[in-house]
């Protein structure tokens, strides 16, 4: 069965440091992958998405993610975090059949400290 695993429930980094949030997926079909961010009291906002082609995709606010078929991963990265990046980040797999359902990871809560 398809699934998305975000192994880190909480991550704390210092402002200006680099960031990697991990995501592993399990799906036998062609994966369409997304990273969403949720700020307090707001809806999920799309950061970036991967459909095909270059495995490194650029998103908003300096975020990027790298797709690896061999590792079944789609890790999110940022070179230098800002305090405003503190939020919950969700890795999402969209199935490629049927009603193209979304399968969510549990989310990683990022805290950026001074």
């Amino acid at each position: 069965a398809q699934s998305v695993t975000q192994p880190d429930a909480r991550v704390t980094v210092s402002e200006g440091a680099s960031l990697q949030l991990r995501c592993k997926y399990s799906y036998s079909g062609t994966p369409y992958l997304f990273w969403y961010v949720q700020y307090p009291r707001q809806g999920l906002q799309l950061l970036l998405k991967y459909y095909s082609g270059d495995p490194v995709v650029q998103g908003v606010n300096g975020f990027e993610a790298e797709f690896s078929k061999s590792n079944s991963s789609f890790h999110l990265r940022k070179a230098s975090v800002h305090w405003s990046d503190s939020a919950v980040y969700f890795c999402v797999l969209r199935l490629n059949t049927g009603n193209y359902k979304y399968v969510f990871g549990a989310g990683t809560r990022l805290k950026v400290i001074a």
Partner: protein
Amino acid sequence: GPKVLQIPSHQIIDMGQMVTLNCDPVSNHLYFYWYKQILGQQMEFLVNFYNGKVMEKSKLFKDQFSVERPDGSYFTLKIQPTALEDSAVYFCASSLTGGRAEQFFGPGTRLTVL
């Protein structure tokens, strides 16, 4: 960008009562979705809805659940009667078309059943 609104943000009710969660989707969107997230767990698909009909529902969409969007107003999720295990955050989403179209998410309604 396009915004999905959800009303209320938090609802507390007694077990056995009825509750209606309201979603104001993006104005020209035609497909609507509900997701459920129990505290500390993954967000899971409940149901999607198009042209006045449920297109697909998951096993979480119990007989006590119903959805409708009368006359282009709010897209609603009704639970009657509620049970303790219905306590969760419910997220609404909408998309312009079905299939591969991006879903836009609301901020969620936290439902607490006592």
